[in-house]
């Protein structure tokens, strides 16, 4: 036995944590026993991730096939409790909220995609593209260096209600970013048809501050064209299951905000800076352990 190898400290669910999860599970049709089993399975998954991280210490902030498997197991638990989601759903923000978000973007600086390649994030995986892809993105999009603030936290919180029916489970908010698509842009990046290739369990929420129409741009999702919508249109969808792409406007810029979510057993706000090129967490346990009054 390797004396230098430490046994990982186990993740423990506090009484508050268990109560929180059970409260969230109360609206499911699971029996008490099933809920108990589910919670045990969840803790096992989180502890398996901890063991993995300790065994491959240098890979703490990398994403591996093993980690993807953990996300997959976690997502199966979520689906057992809360069911699966439809491909996508839509709703609208009111004009006041659109104005508030537009006001926030007015204060934000923009960044150059190609300069983001070397900028890491403490919690989020970051997309790694070829230089020619970055160049194309910079020519066609203007991306904001989106800053978190109390206002945005409040806005995030306000989204839980309209999203509840679609997401069904509690969820963690992982990343918030925003960009402008220039009119007549080529189909590059978010405007080329794609699925996101995220680990299972993630969802994306697109918020369009500009109307969805020919002039300002549209969204193609799951072989359907979303158009004829007013400013404030929102689309929540399974980003790694459903083919989607933005369609640039013919005349005017399209301005959108994108929020990445992870279905989880507790609600967790975005507690860190955004990354303009961020994907999802390296580690499934990140949102759980950040709620250290629930988990330790």
């Amino acid at each position, binding site marked *: 036995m390797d004396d230098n190898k430490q046994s990982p400290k186990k993740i423990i669910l506090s009484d508050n944590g268990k109560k929180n999860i059970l409260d969230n599970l109360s609206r499911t049709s699971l029996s008490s026993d099933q809920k108990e089993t589910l919670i045990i399975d969840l803790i096992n998954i989180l502890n398996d991730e901890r063991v993995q991280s300790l065994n491959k210490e240098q890979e703490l902030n990398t994403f591996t096939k093993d980690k993807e498997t953990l996300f997959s197991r976690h997502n199966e638990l979520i689906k057992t409790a809360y069911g699966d989601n439809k491909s996508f759903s839509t709703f609208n923000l009111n*004009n006041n909220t*659109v*104005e*508030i978000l*537009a*006001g926030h*973007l*007015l204060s934000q600086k923009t960044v150059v995609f190609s300069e983001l390649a070397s900028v890491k994030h403490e919690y989020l995986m970051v997309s790694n593209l070829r230089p020619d892809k970055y160049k194309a993105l910079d020519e066609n999009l*203007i991306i904001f260096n989106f800053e978190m603030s109390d206002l945005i936290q409040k806005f995030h919180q306000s989204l839980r209600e309209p999203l509840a029916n679609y997401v069904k489970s509690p969820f963690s908010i992982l990343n918030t970013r925003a960009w*402008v698509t*220039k*009119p007549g842009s080529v189909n590059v990046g978010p405007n080329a048809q794609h699925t996101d290739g995220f680990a299972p369990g993630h969802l994306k929420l697109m918020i369009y*501050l*500009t109307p969805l129409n020919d002039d300002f741009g549209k969204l193609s999702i799951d072989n359907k064209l979303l158009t004829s919508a007013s*400013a404030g249109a929102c689309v929540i969808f399974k980003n790694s299951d459903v083919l989607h792409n933005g369609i640039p406007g013919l005349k*005017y*810029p399209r*301005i959108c905000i994108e929020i990445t979510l992870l279905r989880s057993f507790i609600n967790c706000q975005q507690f860190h800076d955004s990354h303009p090129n961020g994907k999802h967490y390296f580690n499934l346990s990140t949102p759980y352990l950040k709620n250290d009054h629930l988990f330790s």
Partner: protein
Amino acid sequence: MSNLITLLNKYHEPKSVNIGSGPRPWFGWHCFDQVVTQGVHYCEFSEKCSLNLESETMDLVYSSHCFEHLEDNTISNLLSEAHRILEKNKTLLIKLPDYDWFMQNYKNKNQTFMNGMGIDKVVWSWEGKVPDDILNRLSFMICGYWNYSYGDPYKKEVNRVPEAYCGPAKFDQTELKELFESSSIRKIVKTLRAKASEDTQLKAFNHQNAWSLKEFSQVLNEHNFEVLNTDRDFIIKQFENFIPDIRTHDYYSMYLTAQKI
């Protein structure tokens, strides 16, 4: 939605200008006015002010019911600025009160044409000072002012006190009648303005300028614009999908389109 409009205009450089827009930004427009509001360029209109835009970059300059509030030197400067920022052969569109229509209605002894002009909001302050009749209402439409006691109607700060006044120049009624019946609109407005300026308590003018269609066309010519069209219905139809307030006050407005030469 001024934040959203400001954000959009930041990333979609407008090619149209609205001089005297009020506190309402428009998407696709550079709006200028003497108001501090998101999305509107603040500009104190004067004989020296500048519309801070590059020369020969705009497709359209529009102004609606603004010039009648300004004095001649300021208007001359703004027309020069409009000329500067417009690309060659591009369009100036001016909408003003149709003073020919007002004068014709007065001469026809129409008793109702001054209704609905917003004058009812201020006539309380005329009591004991000038009669509330068609002639004084018309005089106020051409040239009106308010005194220090009145406050500031544009800031909605109005003092309902006996000394407050927001009305036409205080003219002898016989002289006023003679002025309106024998003079050009330019002469009328200059005479009214001079008379109003005699009031030592004058704080600010509301309207202080006026022209017949012919007189204003001449002003445009003098500023290197060629008048293209003065047909109200035609102009409204031409621009109704582009200019949000093109129809506002249409029945008592004159419209002129002109081309930069």
